[in-house]
């Protein structure tokens, strides 16, 4: 149970920070596609008898590079969709060859947060630190290219490299967290808290901080309730994410309405 809390905490911190940039850049679809597509890689890894995490990593990084490369001259959403369907298609193919292991792979969809072994905690922490360090390094160019890409270009920022770097961070975050919390949970943890924080605060730093806090609160609450009720963690994380964002929007709209009439 202690492992579960530690793993959930690590995942929440990473998802909270990475999610801020995902929401800022309007990259929610990419954050959906990379972990889901990577699921196909895990199926392939199981088929050839390798650790599924290696398969996840290869597919996540490959998908990120593919989206970055295809999205360079075309529309990002189209490149993302094509990368996703290609990876899912391969996943379906691999699954059809390995019926007896299917259950182990399906568990990746929902994760095994209630049964995390101790030896997985250190790699998660290491990859998490790597993700956050990479985002700290890319912080200013990521902000600048999100707001005024033309100015970024004029000031010598290689927007394409920054974008690919960002996609690789998302891939890294997915690889490390998916086996623990599952694909669905990772996606909802990246979007819900960051979007809620973005509508409640105005400064980027406060938004990152609040995003992490909300992700932590969501995960802790979801794990506790799931433990007590024996219902899936993913259900609670997804619901809490959507409900908190909805409440934040209603609250800011009402506050704005009051300022307007005052």
């Amino acid at each position: 149970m202690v492992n579960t809390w530690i793993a959930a905490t690590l995942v929440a911190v990473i998802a909270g920070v990475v999610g801020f940039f995902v929401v800022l850049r309007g990259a929610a679809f990419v954050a959906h596609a990379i972990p889901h597509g990577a699921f196909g890689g895990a199926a392939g890894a199981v088929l050839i008898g390798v650790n599924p995490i290696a398969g996840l990593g290869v597919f996540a990084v490959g998908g990120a590079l593919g989206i970055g490369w295809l999205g360079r001259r075309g529309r990002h959403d189209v490149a993302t969709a094509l990368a996703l369907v290609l990876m899912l298609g391969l996943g379906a193919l691999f699954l059809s060859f390995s019926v007896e292991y299917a259950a182990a792979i399906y568990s990746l969809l929902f994760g095994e947060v209630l049964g995390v072994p101790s030896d997985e905690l250190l790699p998660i922490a290491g990859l998490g630190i790597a993700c956050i360090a990479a985002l700290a390094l890319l912080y200013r160019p990521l902000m600048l290219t999100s707001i005024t890409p033309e100015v970024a270009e004029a000031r010598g920022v290689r927007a394409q490299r920054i974008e690919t770097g960002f996609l690789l961070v998302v891939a890294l975050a997915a690889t490390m967290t998916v086996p623990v919390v599952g694909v669905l949970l990772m996606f909802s943890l990246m979007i819900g808290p960051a979007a809620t924080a973005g509508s409640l605060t105005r400064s980027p730093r406060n938004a990152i901080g609040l995003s992490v806090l909300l992700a932590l609160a969501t995960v802790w609450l979801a794990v506790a309730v799931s433990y007590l009720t024996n219902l899936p963690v993913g259900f609670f994380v997804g619901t809490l994410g959507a409900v908190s964002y909805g409440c934040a929007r209603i609250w800011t709209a009402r506050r704005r309405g009051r300022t307007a009439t005052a």
Partner: protein
Amino acid sequence: MNVLPDHGADDPILSVDGVSVWLSGREVLHDVRFRIMPGEFTGLIGSNGAGKTTLFRVILGLQASSTGSVLVGGRPLTRRNPIIGYVPQKVFLDPDMPLRARDVVALGLDGHRLGVPLGWRRRRQAVDAMLDAVDARHFADARVGNLSGGEQQRVLIAHALISRPRLLLLDEPLANLDIRAEGEVVALLARIAREQRIAVLISAHDVNPLLPVLDRLVYVASGKTASGTTAEVIRAEVLSALYGQHVDVLRVHGRILVVAGAEGPSGVTFEETDGAAVGPDIVSLR
């Protein structure tokens, strides 16, 4: 005064000499030549699609010219030229982004650098001073996506000015502004050009809002340009030669209308090229 040692205040800050640009088999700019002196306020006037943004991209070093040369501060073009500040066209600032006006301005200081910004107090002072200079201090902590068009434009000007450029390029900053905001932005830019001796090159499809402050203008039509003072350039002979057909220049209550001559007897019509109106159109009369 922030003058480079090998470049005097009497030398042009920008000289564009015989620049032509071909894009996918079409000549977008033809033999463009003009100069801008330090502190000069220059309008780049032409309709949408006339080649204004392409010319900006050439000056910024983002688009190679097919022929000709561009000197900025007396030196050949480089990518990432610190002498130039740039306000691009149509910046969409999402109201959902957790970003204050001051965050946008701070990114103008060092947004291209890697890593997390340090020197918090010094940065805050620089940003506050810049916000004061563009009369934007009172909405410094507002969410930038919720500001009005004129307020956002002032924030973007501060974003471009905080790195202390000597030439400020603005691509259609008056588009989508109401008349009052338009006047405020023009007055602000004229003040900056005069007080800080920053040369301003501003593109617009309508010359009228800029008339009180323009030192010179560069008129672009179908990729060709004419430059000089307003009186020199906005004349029927000069513009007719640019457009390649007869054009009338009407002056009404201190405002200028450029109207294409009609082919038939039906009187005044508006010239069209590729479906877009060419030249300042009559709608600008208000």
